[in-house]
């Protein structure tokens, strides 16, 4: 199965306002994929959580937002990257309820529940890369 990229947007996350810009762009791409309002809210919210993580934990980073198509369907793929402190225990963070930023600690674990594919690559001192895909319904 081949995946092609139909649309690609690379955005910087340097300020708090960039979180809203990422959110808006993801919503636009979701619309282009003909997501329904539930799917659109899910993917927009997941992107918002992850963009905020970049800003809160690393101060800056970037997001690549893509509209992709495989043989049968279209979807939204978003990848966040930062060179921040990284995550010491991914398992603990993904279990939910663990936070180093005095928040609910549901950002990563909650986002994963909203999308179809989710991967995270991080280690202390190596920054963090989080990627997710959500596919349009058949």
């Amino acid at each position, binding site marked *: 199965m081949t995946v092609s990229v139909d649309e690609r947007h690379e955005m910087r996350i340097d300020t708090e306002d960039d979180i*809203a810009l990422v959110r808006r762009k993801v*919503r636009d791409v979701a619309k282009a994929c003909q997501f329904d*309002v539930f799917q659109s*809210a*899910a993917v927009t*919210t997941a992107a918002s959580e992850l963009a905020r993580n970049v800003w809160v934990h690393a101060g800056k980073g970037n997001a690549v937002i893509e509209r992709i198509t495989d043989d049968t369907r279209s979807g939204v793929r978003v990848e966040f990257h930062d060179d921040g402190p990284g995550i010491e225990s991914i398992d603990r963070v993904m279990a939910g309820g663990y936070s180093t930023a005095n*928040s609910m600690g*549901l950002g990563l674990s*909650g986002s994963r529940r909203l999308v179809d594919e989710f991967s995270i690559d991080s280690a202390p001192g190596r920054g963090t890369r989080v990627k997710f895909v959500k596919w349009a319904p058949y």
Partner: protein
Amino acid sequence: MTGTIPILRIGRTLLATVQTDLRDNVANAFQQDALSALEKGGMSGLVIDISGLEAVDTYVARVLVDTGRMARLMGAATVLVGMRPEIAATLVRMGYPMEGVDTALNLEEGLERLRLQTRT
């Protein structure tokens, strides 16, 4: 551009209508504005209408819930009204506990809820 959330006064109730996309700094400013307005006007209730809001992540959810809890500490009741179905679904799927604030289906129900709560 940083927007602000309009806060209207209806009798002893404040009505705040949140726009489509709520930025973090606008949400934070709103929390302070609403609490100050409650105190200054001697208000007994706060209705936050989020029917226009298209996405609520855990940060914004927390600001909204916290605002209600803070208002309650001050002695005012808060009702969050008009949450869209897709937002309710998203928050529940994420595992976010929206505890600590009253909710109502729409503005009319919310005002009625407050009227019953604050009746003396």
